[in-house]
């Protein structure tokens, strides 16, 4: 399984804070994004064409090309605004 997390505006727009996905189908983050983007317009806008999309895998900054392993935690969120 893969653990998927959504934060801030992504969580609100997608109506979901987390979910689990079967790992077998996904070699890289890009594969996950492609699949999720097929869920509808909100998903496509947030995950496919969004220059603001930030990605983390296992608490480290990642890219669409980052490779995945079973049990990985993947997070999607907008640019950070703390401090």
């Amino acid at each position: 399984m893969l653990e998927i997390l959504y934060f801030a505006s992504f969580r609100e727009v997608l109506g979901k804070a987390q979910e689990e996905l079967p790992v077998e189908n996904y070699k890289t983050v890009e594969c996950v994004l492609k699949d999720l983007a097929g869920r509808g317009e909100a998903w496509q806008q947030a995950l496919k064409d969004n220059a603001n999309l930030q990605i983390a895998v296992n608490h480290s900054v990642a890219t669409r090309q980052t490779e995945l392993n079973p049990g990985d935690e993947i997070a999607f969120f907008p640019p950070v605004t703390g401090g």
Partner: protein
Amino acid sequence: MSLYSFVKVQVEDFDLSTEVKILRTGHKDIGAVVSFVGTVRDINEGDDISVLELEHYPGMTEKALENIRLEAHERWPLQSSLIIHRIGEMQPCDQIVLVAVTSRHREAAFEAAHFIMDYLKTNAPFWKKETFPNGETRWVDARVTDKEAETRWLK
């Protein structure tokens, strides 16, 4: 994990003097203490703010803050450093974040505290949501100037 951690993500407010005192304890030869406190402004981009909500990514946030802190210790001769960042609901004038560093001389302390804040702004997973007096909400946009500030420290 040591008994006293130098990265804290917490709902509770903090006291500047108390934290600085702890930070100085057990360190010899400190000549300079620089601290930064970020506070909730009552106005942002021309609009009155009544509530500010801070969301974070538990686990990744602490790791990101600790990495920034250790990077500062690699770049400057510091005796100690501390980052406290609050989460949850805050009102105007509330304290949001504290960065404090100690060093022998002021140059390193000023630079390191500034560096930590600039990197925290663009690398630590926190998100701000504003509530206006009429009840409407808005996620705060990342500022271009914060990204520019970070580039100043590229080696």
